Protein backbone atom coordinates (compact mmCIF):
# COMPACT_ATOMS: atom_id res chain seq x y z
CA UNK A 1 0.00 0.00 0.00
CA UNK A 2 1.33 3.40 -0.92
CA UNK A 3 1.18 5.83 1.95
CA UNK A 4 1.15 9.58 1.66
CA UNK A 5 4.02 10.70 3.80
CA UNK A 6 4.23 13.65 6.09
CA UNK A 7 7.02 15.13 3.97
CA UNK A 8 4.75 14.89 0.92
CA UNK A 9 2.03 16.86 2.66
CA UNK A 10 4.42 19.73 3.32
CA UNK A 11 5.64 19.69 -0.28
CA UNK A 12 2.16 19.40 -1.75
CA UNK A 13 0.68 22.23 0.30
CA UNK A 14 3.33 24.90 0.67
CA UNK A 15 0.64 27.45 1.60
CA UNK A 16 -0.18 25.71 4.86
CA UNK A 17 1.84 27.97 7.11
CA UNK A 18 0.03 27.23 10.36
CA UNK A 19 0.84 23.80 11.70
CA UNK A 20 -0.91 22.26 14.69
CA UNK A 21 -0.61 18.98 16.53
CA UNK A 22 -3.53 17.85 18.63
CA UNK A 23 -4.09 14.86 20.84
CA UNK A 24 -4.52 13.68 24.37
CA UNK A 25 -2.01 14.74 26.98
CA UNK A 26 1.41 13.10 26.98
CA UNK A 27 1.24 11.54 23.52
CA UNK A 28 3.97 13.67 22.00
CA UNK A 29 2.42 16.92 20.74
CA UNK A 30 5.32 19.01 21.98
CA UNK A 31 7.83 16.49 20.64
CA UNK A 32 6.26 16.54 17.18
CA UNK A 33 5.96 20.32 17.18
CA UNK A 34 9.65 20.64 18.00
CA UNK A 35 10.68 17.98 15.49
CA UNK A 36 8.60 19.53 12.69
CA UNK A 37 10.08 22.93 13.48
CA UNK A 38 13.55 21.35 13.33
CA UNK A 39 12.83 19.70 9.97
CA UNK A 40 11.44 22.86 8.37
CA UNK A 41 14.29 25.00 9.74
CA UNK A 42 16.83 22.56 8.29
CA UNK A 43 15.02 22.95 4.96
CA UNK A 44 15.78 26.65 5.14
CA UNK A 45 12.37 27.90 6.33
CA UNK A 46 12.03 30.45 9.08
CA UNK A 47 9.99 28.77 11.77
CA UNK A 48 8.41 29.87 15.02
CA UNK A 49 7.15 27.18 17.35
CA UNK A 50 5.11 28.51 20.25
CA UNK A 51 3.14 27.08 23.08
CA UNK A 52 -0.45 27.97 23.90
CA UNK A 53 -0.33 25.79 27.01
CA UNK A 54 -0.02 27.56 30.38
CA UNK A 55 1.99 24.46 31.42
CA UNK A 56 4.28 24.65 28.45
CA UNK A 57 7.17 22.27 27.94
CA UNK A 58 9.10 23.77 25.05
CA UNK A 59 11.74 24.96 27.50
CA UNK A 60 12.28 21.35 28.59
CA UNK A 61 12.45 19.88 25.12
CA UNK A 62 14.91 22.49 23.84
CA UNK A 63 16.80 22.48 27.16
CA UNK A 64 16.69 26.24 27.23
CA UNK A 65 14.67 28.53 29.47
CA UNK A 66 12.52 30.50 27.05
CA UNK A 67 9.50 31.15 29.29
CA UNK A 68 8.19 34.69 28.82
CA UNK A 69 11.26 35.72 26.83
CA UNK A 70 9.59 36.25 23.46
CA UNK A 71 10.76 34.43 20.32
CA UNK A 72 14.14 32.90 21.19
CA UNK A 73 16.58 31.51 18.63
CA UNK A 74 17.24 27.81 19.18
CA UNK A 75 19.30 27.27 16.01
CA UNK A 76 19.49 29.09 12.68
CA UNK A 77 15.91 29.64 11.37
CA UNK A 78 14.31 28.01 14.39
CA UNK A 79 12.67 30.18 17.03
CA UNK A 80 10.65 29.09 20.04
CA UNK A 81 8.35 30.99 22.35
CA UNK A 82 6.49 30.29 25.56
CA UNK A 83 3.84 32.82 26.51
CA UNK A 84 3.86 34.08 30.09
CA UNK A 85 0.10 34.45 30.53
CA UNK A 86 0.39 35.74 34.09
CA UNK A 87 2.59 38.62 33.10
CA UNK A 88 0.41 39.45 30.14
CA UNK A 89 -2.67 39.64 32.36
CA UNK A 90 -0.83 41.92 34.81
CA UNK A 91 0.35 44.23 32.03
CA UNK A 92 -3.12 44.31 30.61
CA UNK A 93 -4.67 45.25 33.99
CA UNK A 94 -2.11 48.01 34.33
CA UNK A 95 -2.96 49.28 30.85
CA UNK A 96 -6.67 49.45 31.78
CA UNK A 97 -5.92 51.30 35.04
CA UNK A 98 -3.76 53.82 33.22
CA UNK A 99 -6.45 54.40 30.64
CA UNK A 100 -9.07 55.08 33.32
CA UNK A 101 -6.81 57.50 35.19
CA UNK A 102 -6.00 59.35 31.98
CA UNK A 103 -9.56 59.47 30.67
CA UNK A 104 -11.01 60.97 33.82
CA UNK A 105 -7.99 62.74 35.25
CA UNK A 106 -8.29 60.70 38.42
CA UNK A 107 -5.56 60.30 41.03
CA UNK A 108 -6.71 56.88 42.11
CA UNK A 109 -8.93 54.16 40.68
CA UNK A 110 -12.33 54.09 42.46
CA UNK A 111 -12.53 51.15 44.85
CA UNK A 112 -15.45 49.52 43.07
CA UNK A 113 -13.66 49.62 39.74
CA UNK A 114 -10.39 48.39 41.20
CA UNK A 115 -12.02 45.38 42.81
CA UNK A 116 -13.65 44.55 39.49
CA UNK A 117 -10.31 44.71 37.70
CA UNK A 118 -8.83 42.32 40.25
CA UNK A 119 -11.77 39.93 40.24
CA UNK A 120 -11.79 39.74 36.45
CA UNK A 121 -8.13 38.72 36.40
CA UNK A 122 -8.82 35.89 38.83
CA UNK A 123 -11.30 34.23 36.44
CA UNK A 124 -9.96 30.94 35.08
CA UNK A 125 -10.81 31.96 31.53
CA UNK A 126 -8.51 34.95 31.85
CA UNK A 127 -5.29 33.03 31.34
CA UNK A 128 -6.58 31.31 28.22
CA UNK A 129 -7.95 34.54 26.81
CA UNK A 130 -4.63 36.26 27.43
CA UNK A 131 -2.76 33.54 25.56
CA UNK A 132 -5.36 33.58 22.82
CA UNK A 133 -4.84 37.31 22.47
CA UNK A 134 -1.07 37.04 22.39
CA UNK A 135 -1.27 34.38 19.67
CA UNK A 136 -3.17 36.91 17.56
CA UNK A 137 -0.31 39.35 18.16
CA UNK A 138 2.27 36.78 17.10
CA UNK A 139 0.45 35.85 13.93
CA UNK A 140 -0.49 39.39 12.94
CA UNK A 141 3.11 40.53 13.40
CA UNK A 142 4.35 37.98 10.85
CA UNK A 143 7.98 37.46 9.93
CA UNK A 144 8.07 33.66 9.73
CA UNK A 145 7.41 31.10 7.00
CA UNK A 146 5.81 28.67 9.42
CA UNK A 147 3.99 28.96 12.72
CA UNK A 148 3.81 25.78 14.73
CA UNK A 149 1.24 25.74 17.53
CA UNK A 150 2.16 23.48 20.38
CA UNK A 151 -1.43 22.91 21.43
CA UNK A 152 -3.01 22.12 24.76
CA UNK A 153 -4.48 18.64 25.37
CA UNK A 154 -7.67 17.75 23.52
CA UNK A 155 -10.31 18.91 25.98
CA UNK A 156 -8.64 22.25 26.32
CA UNK A 157 -8.11 22.60 22.59
CA UNK A 158 -11.82 22.06 22.06
CA UNK A 159 -12.55 24.67 24.68
CA UNK A 160 -10.15 26.99 22.91
CA UNK A 161 -11.93 26.44 19.61
CA UNK A 162 -15.42 26.79 21.02
CA UNK A 163 -14.31 29.90 22.88
CA UNK A 164 -13.53 31.52 19.56
CA UNK A 165 -16.96 30.80 18.14
CA UNK A 166 -18.84 31.73 21.32
CA UNK A 167 -16.90 34.98 21.62
CA UNK A 168 -17.63 35.68 18.03
CA UNK A 169 -21.38 35.29 18.44
CA UNK A 170 -21.50 37.33 21.60
CA UNK A 171 -19.53 40.15 20.19
CA UNK A 172 -21.86 40.15 17.18
CA UNK A 173 -24.89 40.52 19.43
CA UNK A 174 -23.34 43.20 21.59
CA UNK A 175 -22.11 45.11 18.58
CA UNK A 176 -25.56 45.16 17.04
CA UNK A 177 -27.09 46.40 20.31
CA UNK A 178 -24.48 49.13 20.37
CA UNK A 179 -25.28 50.05 16.79
CA UNK A 180 -28.95 50.28 17.68
CA UNK A 181 -28.07 52.61 20.54
CA UNK A 182 -26.15 54.68 18.07
CA UNK A 183 -29.26 55.03 15.92
CA UNK A 184 -31.22 56.42 18.86
CA UNK A 185 -28.40 58.87 19.46
CA UNK A 186 -28.69 59.94 15.87
CA UNK A 187 -32.44 60.34 16.03
CA UNK A 188 -32.16 62.53 19.11
CA UNK A 189 -29.39 64.53 17.47
CA UNK A 190 -31.43 65.12 14.32
CA UNK A 191 -34.53 66.18 16.23
CA UNK A 192 -32.50 68.52 18.39
CA UNK A 193 -30.55 69.68 15.33
CA UNK A 194 -27.24 68.89 16.94
CA UNK A 195 -24.71 69.10 14.18
CA UNK A 196 -22.09 66.75 15.49
CA UNK A 197 -22.28 63.44 17.20
CA UNK A 198 -19.25 62.19 19.12
CA UNK A 199 -17.70 59.01 17.83
CA UNK A 200 -18.78 55.98 19.81
CA UNK A 201 -15.54 54.80 21.40
CA UNK A 202 -17.17 51.66 22.76
CA UNK A 203 -18.44 50.63 19.36
CA UNK A 204 -14.92 51.04 18.02
CA UNK A 205 -13.54 48.86 20.82
CA UNK A 206 -16.12 46.18 20.07
CA UNK A 207 -15.23 46.20 16.41
CA UNK A 208 -11.57 45.89 17.37
CA UNK A 209 -12.29 42.87 19.63
CA UNK A 210 -14.35 41.29 16.88
CA UNK A 211 -11.53 41.70 14.42
CA UNK A 212 -9.04 40.09 16.83
CA UNK A 213 -11.27 37.08 17.46
CA UNK A 214 -12.02 36.64 13.80
CA UNK A 215 -8.35 36.67 12.90
CA UNK A 216 -7.54 33.77 15.17
CA UNK A 217 -10.60 31.68 14.45
CA UNK A 218 -10.10 32.22 10.73
CA UNK A 219 -6.64 30.74 10.99
CA UNK A 220 -7.89 27.73 12.92
CA UNK A 221 -10.41 26.94 10.21
CA UNK A 222 -8.59 27.97 7.04
CA UNK A 223 -8.14 24.92 4.80
CA UNK A 224 -5.66 26.72 2.57
CA UNK A 225 -3.32 27.90 5.27
CA UNK A 226 -3.67 25.48 8.15
CA UNK A 227 -2.69 21.88 8.69
CA UNK A 228 -3.96 20.09 11.76
CA UNK A 229 -2.46 16.73 12.71
CA UNK A 230 -3.67 14.32 15.35
CA UNK A 231 -1.26 12.27 17.43
CA UNK A 232 -2.40 8.76 18.40
CA UNK A 233 -0.83 5.70 20.00
CA UNK A 234 -1.72 2.04 19.60
CA UNK A 235 -4.04 1.80 22.61
CA UNK A 236 -7.78 1.29 22.72
CA UNK A 237 -8.73 4.29 24.83
CA UNK A 238 -6.55 6.66 22.86
CA UNK A 239 -8.00 5.48 19.55
CA UNK A 240 -11.58 5.91 20.80
CA UNK A 241 -10.98 9.36 22.25
CA UNK A 242 -9.18 10.50 19.12
CA UNK A 243 -12.06 9.35 16.93
CA UNK A 244 -14.51 11.34 19.05
CA UNK A 245 -12.27 14.38 19.09
CA UNK A 246 -11.85 14.14 15.33
CA UNK A 247 -15.61 14.40 14.89
CA UNK A 248 -15.84 17.38 17.24
CA UNK A 249 -12.99 19.17 15.50
CA UNK A 250 -14.68 18.57 12.16
CA UNK A 251 -17.78 20.28 13.56
CA UNK A 252 -15.70 23.39 14.20
CA UNK A 253 -14.43 23.16 10.60
CA UNK A 254 -10.88 22.46 11.63
CA UNK A 255 -9.09 21.13 8.54
CA UNK A 256 -7.72 17.72 9.55
CA UNK A 257 -4.63 16.80 7.54
CA UNK A 258 -3.97 13.38 9.00
CA UNK A 259 -2.83 11.22 11.88
CA UNK A 260 0.60 10.35 13.21
CA UNK A 261 1.10 7.22 15.26
CA UNK A 262 3.61 7.67 18.07
CA UNK A 263 5.43 5.34 20.48
CA UNK A 264 5.52 2.32 18.20
CA UNK A 265 7.67 -0.45 19.68
CA UNK A 266 10.03 -1.86 17.00
CA UNK A 267 8.54 -5.10 15.63
CA UNK A 268 12.06 -6.52 15.37
CA UNK A 269 12.01 -6.92 19.16
CA UNK A 270 9.82 -9.97 18.68
CA UNK A 271 12.66 -11.98 17.21
CA UNK A 272 14.79 -11.37 20.26
CA UNK A 273 14.74 -13.12 23.56
CA UNK A 274 12.39 -10.78 25.44
CA UNK A 275 10.39 -11.18 28.64
CA UNK A 276 6.74 -12.23 28.56
CA UNK A 277 5.65 -8.76 29.67
CA UNK A 278 7.15 -7.06 26.62
CA UNK A 279 5.90 -9.82 24.33
CA UNK A 280 2.35 -9.14 25.50
CA UNK A 281 2.74 -5.44 24.83
CA UNK A 282 3.95 -6.23 21.33
CA UNK A 283 0.98 -8.49 20.60
CA UNK A 284 -1.40 -5.85 21.90
CA UNK A 285 0.31 -3.21 19.78
CA UNK A 286 0.08 -5.37 16.67
CA UNK A 287 -3.67 -5.66 17.21
CA UNK A 288 -4.27 -1.95 17.74
CA UNK A 289 -2.04 -0.95 14.84
CA UNK A 290 -4.41 -2.95 12.66
CA UNK A 291 -7.36 -1.18 14.25
CA UNK A 292 -5.70 2.18 13.59
CA UNK A 293 -5.11 1.19 9.98
CA UNK A 294 -8.81 0.45 9.61
CA UNK A 295 -10.38 3.38 11.41
CA UNK A 296 -8.04 6.07 10.07
CA UNK A 297 -7.79 4.49 6.63
CA UNK A 298 -5.52 6.37 4.25
CA UNK A 299 -4.98 9.22 6.71
CA UNK A 300 -1.97 7.92 8.59
CA UNK A 301 1.08 9.93 7.68
CA UNK A 302 3.82 8.45 9.84
CA UNK A 303 4.69 5.83 12.41
CA UNK A 304 7.19 7.05 14.96
CA UNK A 305 9.14 4.62 17.14
CA UNK A 306 9.36 4.65 20.88
CA UNK A 307 12.86 5.95 21.60
CA UNK A 308 15.40 4.45 23.96
CA UNK A 309 15.35 7.62 26.07
CA UNK A 310 13.20 10.70 26.53
CA UNK A 311 13.24 13.40 23.90
CA UNK A 312 15.13 16.47 25.00
CA UNK A 313 17.87 18.34 23.18
CA UNK A 314 18.43 18.80 19.47
CA UNK A 315 20.10 15.42 18.88
CA UNK A 316 17.02 13.53 20.02
CA UNK A 317 14.73 15.99 18.24
CA UNK A 318 16.60 15.32 15.01
CA UNK A 319 16.17 11.59 15.51
CA UNK A 320 12.41 12.02 15.89
CA UNK A 321 12.26 14.34 12.89
CA UNK A 322 13.96 11.70 10.72
CA UNK A 323 11.48 9.17 12.02
CA UNK A 324 8.62 11.45 11.00
CA UNK A 325 9.83 12.81 7.68
CA UNK A 326 12.39 10.24 6.52
CA UNK A 327 16.02 11.21 5.91
CA UNK A 328 16.59 14.83 4.97
Amino acid sequence: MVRISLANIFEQYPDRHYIMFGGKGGLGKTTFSAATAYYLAKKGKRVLVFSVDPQASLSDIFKKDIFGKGPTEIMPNLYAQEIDADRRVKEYQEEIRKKILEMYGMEKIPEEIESYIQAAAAEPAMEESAIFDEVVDIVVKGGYDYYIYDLVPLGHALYYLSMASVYDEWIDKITSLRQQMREYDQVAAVIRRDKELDEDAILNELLYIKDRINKSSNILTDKQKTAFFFVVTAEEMIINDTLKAGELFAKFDVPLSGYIVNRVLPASLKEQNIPEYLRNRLTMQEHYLKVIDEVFKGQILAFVSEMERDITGLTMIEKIAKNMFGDF
Partner: protein
Amino acid sequence: MADDKKKGGFFQAVKEFVYGVAAHDSARFAMKTRASMEHLFILITMGDMLGVPILPPYYSLRLLPYVVPQISTWKRRMLREKDLTDALA
Protein backbone atom coordinates in the same frame (compact mmCIF):
# COMPACT_ATOMS: atom_id res chain seq x y z
CA MET B 1 -27.25 95.13 12.27
CA ALA B 2 -29.42 95.61 15.30
CA ASP B 3 -32.43 94.87 13.13
CA ASP B 4 -30.86 91.64 11.91
CA LYS B 5 -30.20 90.54 15.40
CA LYS B 6 -33.75 91.26 16.42
CA LYS B 7 -35.06 89.31 13.46
CA GLY B 8 -32.73 86.42 14.25
CA GLY B 9 -33.87 86.48 17.84
CA PHE B 10 -37.47 86.36 16.78
CA PHE B 11 -36.96 83.45 14.41
CA GLN B 12 -34.87 81.69 16.99
CA ALA B 13 -37.70 82.02 19.46
CA VAL B 14 -40.23 80.70 16.93
CA LYS B 15 -37.91 77.83 16.12
CA GLU B 16 -37.51 76.92 19.76
CA PHE B 17 -41.25 77.20 20.33
CA VAL B 18 -42.02 74.88 17.43
CA TYR B 19 -39.35 72.48 18.60
CA GLY B 20 -40.81 72.53 22.09
CA VAL B 21 -44.32 71.78 20.88
CA ALA B 22 -43.55 69.27 18.18
CA ALA B 23 -40.27 67.51 18.78
CA HIS B 24 -39.13 67.87 22.34
CA ASP B 25 -41.11 64.88 23.48
CA SER B 26 -39.81 62.56 20.77
CA ALA B 27 -36.26 63.68 21.48
CA ARG B 28 -36.84 62.96 25.15
CA PHE B 29 -38.28 59.57 24.30
CA ALA B 30 -35.31 58.70 22.11
CA MET B 31 -32.94 59.71 24.88
CA LYS B 32 -34.86 57.71 27.45
CA THR B 33 -34.85 54.57 25.32
CA ARG B 34 -31.20 55.17 24.71
CA ALA B 35 -30.57 55.35 28.46
CA SER B 36 -32.25 52.02 29.20
CA MET B 37 -30.29 50.46 26.38
CA GLU B 38 -27.15 51.80 28.00
CA HIS B 39 -28.06 49.94 31.18
CA LEU B 40 -28.74 46.78 29.24
CA PHE B 41 -25.43 47.19 27.49
CA ILE B 42 -23.53 47.50 30.74
CA LEU B 43 -25.35 44.47 32.11
CA ILE B 44 -24.21 42.44 29.13
CA THR B 45 -20.63 43.59 29.24
CA MET B 46 -20.04 44.09 32.95
CA GLY B 47 -22.57 41.56 34.23
CA ASP B 48 -20.04 39.75 36.37
CA MET B 49 -20.02 42.73 38.72
CA LEU B 50 -23.46 41.55 39.79
CA GLY B 51 -22.47 37.91 39.53
CA VAL B 52 -23.85 37.42 36.02
CA PRO B 53 -20.83 36.65 33.85
CA ILE B 54 -21.72 37.11 30.20
CA LEU B 55 -18.89 38.54 28.17
CA PRO B 56 -15.49 36.88 28.72
CA PRO B 57 -13.73 39.02 31.34
CA TYR B 58 -10.68 39.61 29.19
CA TYR B 59 -12.73 41.64 26.78
CA SER B 60 -15.06 43.25 29.28
CA LEU B 61 -11.97 44.79 30.88
CA ARG B 62 -11.27 46.51 27.58
CA LEU B 63 -14.63 48.26 27.78
CA LEU B 64 -14.42 49.12 31.46
CA PRO B 65 -12.76 52.53 31.09
CA TYR B 66 -15.67 53.82 29.01
CA VAL B 67 -18.38 52.91 31.46
CA VAL B 68 -16.70 54.02 34.70
CA PRO B 69 -19.06 57.02 35.18
CA GLN B 70 -22.18 54.89 34.64
CA ILE B 71 -21.18 52.02 36.91
CA SER B 72 -22.61 53.32 40.17
CA THR B 73 -26.00 54.47 38.82
CA TRP B 74 -26.28 51.27 36.86
CA LYS B 75 -25.65 49.09 39.91
CA ARG B 76 -28.22 51.05 41.87
CA ARG B 77 -30.80 50.63 39.15
CA MET B 78 -30.17 46.92 38.77
CA LEU B 79 -30.02 46.07 42.45
CA ARG B 80 -32.62 48.31 44.02
CA GLU B 81 -35.68 46.74 45.51
CA LYS B 82 -39.09 47.67 44.26
CA ASP B 83 -41.26 49.50 46.76
CA LEU B 84 -44.16 51.93 46.84
CA THR B 85 -42.09 54.96 46.03
CA ASP B 86 -41.21 53.38 42.70
CA ALA B 87 -44.77 53.82 41.57
CA LEU B 88 -44.59 57.51 42.44
CA ALA B 89 -41.36 58.12 40.59
